[in-house]
């Protein structure tokens, strides 16, 4: 909570002349571009994510299993890497349209973020019961009508969640929009901080951004306040995949392959080409040490974040009106704050606290313990929590929301206490959401850049830092090895989770 108070308190610092300059010259651009970027990414990820999720969860077609897990792969591609890669490709083929503009940025970011929507929507579609579809069919609804009128509305919380995450991440993005020449609120924040050396105004701008996001999220939540999305008629019977004609199979596969090809295959092949033919980087021990570091850090952090989110989400389910709950809503907006701002927002309070401890120790025992919190992994993992708690807690919450409160009540009548309900009912039912949450956070941390780079302890290098340093030094070719490893490391949890989601279906 402290970092948020810190951010919010910035509003009370005096506003200086730089604000006048910003309002007069650039604020409109920042605001317009950010808004269009967020809405555009929201829209594109919605289309790409829900359509692919629906096709892979409804129809039977060849390679369905393979395609449904490949569709997650673009998530592990850092957005700035895909942008630089595409610009590299476009430079070689002059007939391709230029992507160094706002639509290009929307397209690039959507290509790597639609899996947020895909994974959540797919989970929701698979949970939907057969009866609903049968009822719709009895009312002679077509497949398309079922998709638009039943599947999507029923999956609304999950889809909205995915779209919100994607839009928030787009808002906080720096590397991609900067490279593609699109000035946004976030580039403005850094321009004010780095260029004008005015941290106060930069933090005030972040607070403003956060407020705007808060308003949007609030409106969305308010609009479905009274609605609960659990199904009272839930039964064991899940949908069977629809058998479709060969022509339709072909169409379905083509549609699914589109985002996959653009978001993963093309850039990945280009990276491999660079890595094998042109890169000066070697696959030495130091490199594998970095791979180890990254996977270990991402795994531990994702696990810790998962545990915290489960706790948080439960507090919410058990006492929906508690104050903690309100605080949590604010904390989970952390996703829209640009990484470096999160970094200073956690750094300043913890460093102050560390200095206080050291002062006391020196005055009493003449001994200095060093920076216990701010100079260690503690602060890094704490910052990850701030940044990614949104993702995992909302993923879990959307899963939990689909378990009806009546189920809990029924269990209670049978004498089960809260713990038993958690172990015997919720945990098995939530397995998919838990794994999705873990997967998304793991991949996000693998490719996370600003927090890792600013807050890491000495001599601790990760793949994302290495890839970014090389890419920003205009050595994208040399960055290819690290980028490839980020993607490959992402495959491990993707395979795990897909086996789980698919396994569930196959048993029925």
């Amino acid at each position, binding site marked *: 909570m402290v970092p948020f108070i810190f951010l919010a308190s910035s509003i009370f610092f005096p506003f200086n002349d730089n604000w006048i300059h910003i309002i007069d010259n650039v604020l409109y651009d920042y605001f317009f571009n950010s808004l269009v970027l967020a809405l555009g990414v929201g829209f594109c990820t919605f289309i790409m994510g829900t359509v692919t999720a629906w096709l892979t969860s409804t129809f039977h077609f060849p390679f369905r299993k393979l395609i449904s897990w490949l569709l997650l792969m673009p998530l592990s591609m850092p957005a700035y890497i895909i942008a630089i890669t595409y610009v590299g490709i476009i430079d070689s083929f002059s007939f391709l349209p230029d992507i160094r503009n706002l639509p290009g940025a929307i397209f690039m970011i959507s290509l790597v973020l639609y899996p947020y929507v895909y994974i959540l929507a797919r989970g929701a579609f698979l949970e939907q019961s057969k009866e609903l579809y049968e009822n719709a069919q009895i009312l002679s609804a077509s497949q398309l009508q079922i998709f638009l009128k039943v599947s999507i509305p029923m999956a609304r919380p999950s889809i909205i969640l995915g779209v919100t995450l994607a839009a928030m991440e787009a808002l906080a993005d720096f590397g991609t929009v900067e490279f593609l020449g699109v000035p946004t609120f976030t580039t403005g924040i850094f321009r004010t901080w780095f*260029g004008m050396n005015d941290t106060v105004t930069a933090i005030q701008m972040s607070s403003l951004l956060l407020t705007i996001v808060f308003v949007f999220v609030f409106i969305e939540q308010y609009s479905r306040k009274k609605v609960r999305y659990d199904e009272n008629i839930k039964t064991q019977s899940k949908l069977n995949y629809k058998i479709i004609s060969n022509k339709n199979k072909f169409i379905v596969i083509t549609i699914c392959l589109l985002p996959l090809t653009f978001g993963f295959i093309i850039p990945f092949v280009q990276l491999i080409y660079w890595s094998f033919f042109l890169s000066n980087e070697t696959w030495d021990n130091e490199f594998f040490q970095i791979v180890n570091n990254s996977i270990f850090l991402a795994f531990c952090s994702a696990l810790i974040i998962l545990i915290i989110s489960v706790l948080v989400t439960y507090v919410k389910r058990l006492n929906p009106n508690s104050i903690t709950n309100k605080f949590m809503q604010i904390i989970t907006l952390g996703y829209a704050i640009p990484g470096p701002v999160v970094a200073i927002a956690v750094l300043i309070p913890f*460093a102050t606290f560390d200095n206080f401890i050291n002062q006391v120790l020196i005055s009493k025992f003449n001994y200095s313990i*060093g920076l216990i919190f701010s100079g*260690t992994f503690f602060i890094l993992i704490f910052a990850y929590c701030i940044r990614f708690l949104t993702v995992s807690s909302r993923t879990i919450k959307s899963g939990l929301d689909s378990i009806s409160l009546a189920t809990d009540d029924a269990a209670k009548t049978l004498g089960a206490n809260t713990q038993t309900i958690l172990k015997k009912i919720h945990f098995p039912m939530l397995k998919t959401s838990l794994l999705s949450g873990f997967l998304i956070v793991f991949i996000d941390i693998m490719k996370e850049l600003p927090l890792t780079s600013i807050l890491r302890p000495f001599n601790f290098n990760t793949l994302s830092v290495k890839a970014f*340093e090389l890419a920003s030094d205009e050595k994208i070719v040399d960055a290819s090895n690290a980028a490839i490893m980020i993607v490959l490391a992402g495959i491990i949890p993707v395979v795990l989770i897909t086996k789980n989601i698919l396994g569930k279906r196959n048993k029925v």
Partner: protein
Amino acid sequence: MQNTRFLKNYKALQVILILIFTIYPSITNASEVNVYSGRKAKLIKPLLDQFQNQTGIKVNLVTAKSDALIKRIESEGKSSPADILITVDAGRLDRAKKMDLLQSLSNLPVIKDIPKHYIDKDNKWVALSKRIRTIVFSKENIKNNYIKDFADLANEEWNQRICVRSSNNIYNQSLVASLIANYGEKNTEKLIKRVVENFARKPSGNDRSQIKAVAKNECDIAIVNHYYYLIMLQSNDADQREDANKVSLTFLNQESTGAHVNVSGIGITKYSKNLENARKLITFLLNKKSQEWYAAVNYEYPVLESAKTNELLESWGKVILDEKNINQLGDLNSRAVKLMDRVGWK
């Protein structure tokens, strides 16, 4: 199910314990030095490794954006583990100095060998290498190069013919800051406004993208740092070599103020706990061999005059540099950024 849940908790506990142990960093031992570097690991670590091997002093390194590192040193205060700050422009070192995060280097003997413009006027930092911002132009479309001065870029004949990256970039910011130092803010604003009107496209990409754009005839002139051109010329990617071969590099302002130069530099933090080691490290980075390394690896010019440069750099002969205002770049940076906002350099 109960079992897996228990196992999961147990594993989580293990992980947390491991983390708690890794949390405690190596307690300060006598022979180490802690470096916060805004210079990328690739372009500094090999030298730091050499230092470590030669002296036995362990070098601990964190790399990140200079501004973030300065903020980190500031908030860590007296307990900061950092001994050394390295940045890739003079302005950032100046900022750290003004925030009172650096200490004086005045009695460091090696400083005497460095020309005075490359040392902070209060001796709080010293430059390590020089980078020149200049132009490349299309060999095909500009046969006789008659662009002598940066001010020539404002001429109408270059309308829609100039490419440059975004003004978020520090290289552009310090270029404009140096113009403000030379010509004053009003004149610079007029000049830059006309240059911006001559842009062939909205600023995007990095310096290499600009060189490529010239090679592809999207524009005829690109404003770039000198070493990117050389890196492309020496690239093992045939496309890049081909692009670089289609352009020529020329140094501007050779008959007036000298070409705009910025530096990467180094300073010792105010609360350094390994002062002697930090001083040894700076001395090492300014010795002849280390200085020659910058030229060999990244085509940067060394600050030590006796250090040899690379053959390619050598072939350009002596370049007259705008050295006298390096010390002012930091002060003027904010004004430069606002100026670029006003004239619409995105």
